[in-house]
């Protein structure tokens, strides 16, 4: 059974063979006087080149189909990374917000420091599990931080009157 990779290779090999045929005619035609015979060879030679070009351009399309899975996988990876960047940005933003509130929280000794440490602890514990996906770690930390943000905001509002 032929593999998909062999299809584009076969198309290229066939195209190459047409190029060889055209080249033979080109060389033969060079020494011939102009006239019907030369024109006839010229047309055949051109047709061989056309066949080769059709096969080459087709080979590119076949190649794309053969590698469809790899292309999609790389595309998905890029999308996954961009989504991940959004999560990290959110974590950073929330950590920053929590840090700002924590500064005041500690200052008024209202005990909000353990909250942010709890969020970091979630991260530490999550990463301890080697089977855990990085995205899950990010999402869990994010969820925990959102909770910290809510609690701290309430605390700050109460403290600030």
């Amino acid at each position, binding site marked *: 059974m032929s593999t998909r990779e062999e299809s584009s290779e076969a198309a*290229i090999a066939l195209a190459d063979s047409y*190029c060889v045929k055209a*080249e033979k005619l*080109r060389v033969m*035609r060079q020494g011939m006087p102009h*006239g019907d015979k030369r*024109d006839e060879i*010229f047309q055949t030679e*051109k047709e061989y*080149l056309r066949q080769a*070009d059709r096969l*080459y*351009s*087709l*080979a*590119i*399309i076949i190649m*794309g189909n053969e*590698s469809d899975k*790899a*292309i999609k*996988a*790389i*595309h998905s*990876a*890029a999308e996954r*990374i*961009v989504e*991940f*960047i959004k999560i*990290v*940005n959110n974590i*950073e*933003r929330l*950590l*920053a917000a929590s*840090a*700002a*509130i*924590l*500064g*005041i929280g*500690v*200052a*008024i*000794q209202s005990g909000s*420091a353990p909250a942010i*440490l709890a969020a970091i*602890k979630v*991260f*530490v514990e999550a*990463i301890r599990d*080697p089977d855990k996906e*990085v995205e899950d*770690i*990010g999402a869990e*930390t994010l969820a925990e931080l959102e909770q910290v943000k809510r609690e701290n905001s309430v605390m*700050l509002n109460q403290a*600030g*009157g």
Partner: protein
Amino acid sequence: MRTEVKLGLTLGFILLSACASKEPVKKFATTTDDFVKSFNGFASKAKSTCQLKYKYMELDKGKNYNGDPDAGEFKKECDGYDSSYAVLQVYSNTVSTYASSLGKLAGLKSDVFNDEIDNVSGQLGKLKASGGETVDEKAVAAATKLIKSAAESVTGVIVDSKIKKELKSNHDDLVIVIGDMKRFANKIYSKNLHVADNYTESVLEQLKKLSYVPGGKDQFTTILASGTEKKKIEDALGARLPYRMLQAEMYKDKLLIAQENKALTAFMNSCDALVKAHKDLRDDFGELSDKEMLEKIKEFYEKVKDARENFIVLHS
């Protein structure tokens, strides 16, 4: 040395040691951008390069010939490349998007923190105005900076881990995609250049033969002389000049093909180099093992706890 300074230094050290250098990943992204531009150049010229051979071939055909480049018969050839160009663009978009997302990931910066520190001062003012407890502004700023370092370190470790994972899981697919780009360059584009060059050779050979001036009686000069004003042989001595000068034109065309071939070879080498760079990143990025990274995180966590306790002592 003040406590927060010492802690700041410690956290800074952890930050450095817990996170792998992302510079090679950023460099990989920018280099790939150049690689993709180079590929796009070849992809967009695939059709016109294919048409080159027909252009030179036409010069050698019988009967009528129209030298208008816009009206050339060769323009009707190689339509198949219109469809395949879309596929070539998919390849370049795929590699470009992947490398750029990796570059963005490696280039993440925690610059939001600076604004947040200013924000603390604003909130402090609010507290004071509302008659809240007396607070030490310097102490608050110190606490915020400590947590800022901690937060940067946490996200830094997450990002490292993600980069490492993506480099590992995408390498084999990237090898296939880059391999296809190289096959297009090596087996198709290169072939078209080679065939076009053969046809320039045919034309050049004919021009060289026509450039020959015989030593004795020259029928060609005689015929051309009949078309000059004074109908003198001396006035037609430049009969072969056009052929000789056109040789230079053909040599220029051949040079362009040779230069394109050279660029193509460089591109094919960069395909190999890109795959190797990705492999090296995959194998070497983040020198810390999972176990070592865990140790660093634990250490970091302990330091954050210390930071808080020290801060409270400092405040009281």
